[in-house]
């Protein structure tokens, strides 16, 4: 029982991080109808920037404080992500408007390649460290209720909390702020949005920046867990089933989906894995999503499509 709970929590915490990345996908898809395969590359790029700046800045400016270094690095990284967003809009999106999804998807793959290359040639391709003072040692809880107690990773806990906070933040941003509403308007109908004078290009820059922000936070969390290194760009692959499970256009979907996938794959790996020889979680997540789609083709919270002729 105790172990089952550990697995469950483990799954929930990972799931929270998945939703964080998934939200990046959803934001961009909602606003620009682009399925952004570059999200992973953005995570890597942001994390690299963060890691390297926090390492370089003290040397350049000659100060010690780790906190200051991290704060400055974070800001700088964020600036870079905004720049990236702006460039993407200028050089790619604005020229690719109203093309079918598949070419857009390919374009983002191109962008992903570009960012991977750029990031690594700017910041190097070794394995780097992000130290935001995440607690590493695990903690024991409920020793009274379960023999051996319940082992929780503090790091995951903190990470999950941050992720959750950010997710809520973004949700609020979309529901409450005027920009958020504008974004939603664009998402619902491009022409209409333009006709009431919402400049599409600016909206896109904003959305991609917000996605960049999500990527940065995700990058920092994963980065301090795994170390910042090329492979970071692959975590996005793990968020894809989340996106289709939750529905491409729904933020709540991304959250619920993330948790479901996180728990699903961990439980499957632990309790099914041994029977099948292990290593099943990656495809299990996808199959889970696939089976679900067969029942609800538009995902958990996606809108239903009716063919009109």
């Amino acid at each position, binding site marked *: 029982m105790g172990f089952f709970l550990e697995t469950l929590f483990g799954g929930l915490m990972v799931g929270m991080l998945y939703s964080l990345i998934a939200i990046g996908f959803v934001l961009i898809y909602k606003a620009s109808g682009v399925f952004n395969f570059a999200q992973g590359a953005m995570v890597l790029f942001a994390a690299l920037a963060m890691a390297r700046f926090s390492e370089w800045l003290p040397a350049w400016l000659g100060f010690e404080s780790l906190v200051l270094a991290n704060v400055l690095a974070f800001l700088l990284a964020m600036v870079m992500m905004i720049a990236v967003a702006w460039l993407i809009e200028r050089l790619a999106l604005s020229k690719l408007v109203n093309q079918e999804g598949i070419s857009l998807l390919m374009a983002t793959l191109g962008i992903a390649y570009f960012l991977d290359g750029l990031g690594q040639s700017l910041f190097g391709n070794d394995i780097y460290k992000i130290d935001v003072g995440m607690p590493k040692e695990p903690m024991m809880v409920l020793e009274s209720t379960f023999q051996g107690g319940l082992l929780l990773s503090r790091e995951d806990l903190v990470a999950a909390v941050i992720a959750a906070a950010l997710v809520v933040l973004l949700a609020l941003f979309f529901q409450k702020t005027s920009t958020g509403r504008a974004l939603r308007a664009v998402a619902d109908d491009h022409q209409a949005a333009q006709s009431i004078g919402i400049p599409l290009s600016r909206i896109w820059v904003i959305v991609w920046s917000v996605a960049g922000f999500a990527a940065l936070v995700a990058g920092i969390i994963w980065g301090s867990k795994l170390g910042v290194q090329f*492979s970071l760009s692959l*975590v996005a692959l793990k968020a894809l089933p989340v996106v289709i499970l939750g529905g491409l256009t729904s933020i709540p979907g991304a959250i619920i989906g993330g948790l479901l996938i996180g728990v699903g794959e961990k439980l499957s790996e632990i309790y099914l894995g041994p029977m099948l020889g292990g*290593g099943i979680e990656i495809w299990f997540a996808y199959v889970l999503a696939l089976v679900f789609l067969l029942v609800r083709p538009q995902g958990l919270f996606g809108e239903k499509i009716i063919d009109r002729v």
Partner: protein
Amino acid sequence: MKLKSLALTVVLGAGTLGAAFAPSLAQAQAKEQFFPLLVYRTGPYAPNGTPWANGKQDYIKLVNATGGINGVKISYEECETGYATDKGVECYERLKDKGATLIDPQATGITFALTDKAPVDKIPLITVGYGLSASQDGNAFKWNFPLMGSYWTAADILIQHIAKKEGGVDKLKGKKITLVYHDSPFGKEPIPMLQERAKMNGFELALIPVTAPGIEQKSAWLQVRQQRPDYVLLWGWGVMNSTALKEAVATGYPREKMYGVWWAGAEPDVKDVGMNAKGYNALALNTSGTQPKVIQDILKNVHDKGQGTGPRDEVGSVLYTRGVIIQMLGVEAVRRAQERFGKGKVMTGEQVRWGLENLALDQKKLDALGFAGVMRPISTSCQDHMGSSWARIETWDGAKWNVGTDWYEADEQIIKPMVKAAGEKYANEKKLNRRDAGDCQS
């Protein structure tokens, strides 16, 4: 339309350029021993691949700076494989036409792919401490040289060490040992050996695969926590190792009970885990640090001259040093070959192969080369393409690797028959007839 025609030209340009230039590259340099360098400085495995590659290149530079091999200078060209088999093959094909005489594929997968091509092209493969374990059998694998150790010897030695810690092989009975491995040919190689050992010594072997590249290991380590094994063997490469250590920390598995293969015992694996990895052990094929004479020479003759391949502070790190050793073995093979086929001549692939097969590096030679204390003597033969299987255990103290004192050697009784059987199987599959004594002389 302008853009379109531009696009068109780009395509045509690419095509024609490729056509025009690629062949012209395909000429061997005269009077120089050509070593192609398959490396990966990008992708998930770059942090480990890079120092290795730099070590190889720096040693070549050192040899050239000090008069080459009896006057024969070494020319080289790097090719990025990204640890991907097909790119590795592409590199091999490209560089072999430039007169490649020795190849270190730097990846087990690529080694597998090249094992069938090497005999055709007559290019020896040197796979120090990796590759196809069975290829130790020189009778079946004429062109493979898993010098200094294979994954089978590695696994065997780890078990020996654990037995020793437990106070005798008999103590292994009933123990639980879990292998956490990179889900690829590399990670799977040791399994047959471990199963053999498990049968023999009566310990319980559990296998936990980690999907490459190994960034998501939460469930793997939850399983470890569930099974509570007495020891965990870590068969990882690249980012998988550091991630494994971090998850071990997060699930509270004692690092002292973790033993990595010699590809999981370098700085990149523990660097950003730091103190948390304290007590973690791994196999050591070689020492690290800048004390050895050869490293000093490299610093003096290469880096001080501003010709260092990588950053200076990486010189002497575990994988860098291994790169140096690998390149040294190649160079010595050429030197050995020259003794037979003519000093100061450029050796062909076949001649280098003979050199590799007749390596005899005793302590004296090693000292002379500046490898005193870095590694143990090695001597190969027609039957044994490994030469020696000496290795030690090193432990991370939170800041640096401390190499233990006692040397281990794989247990012939176990290795020999397995290698032989595997060799037979391979020879039969490939319908090759095994080499006779006469062939060994050639």
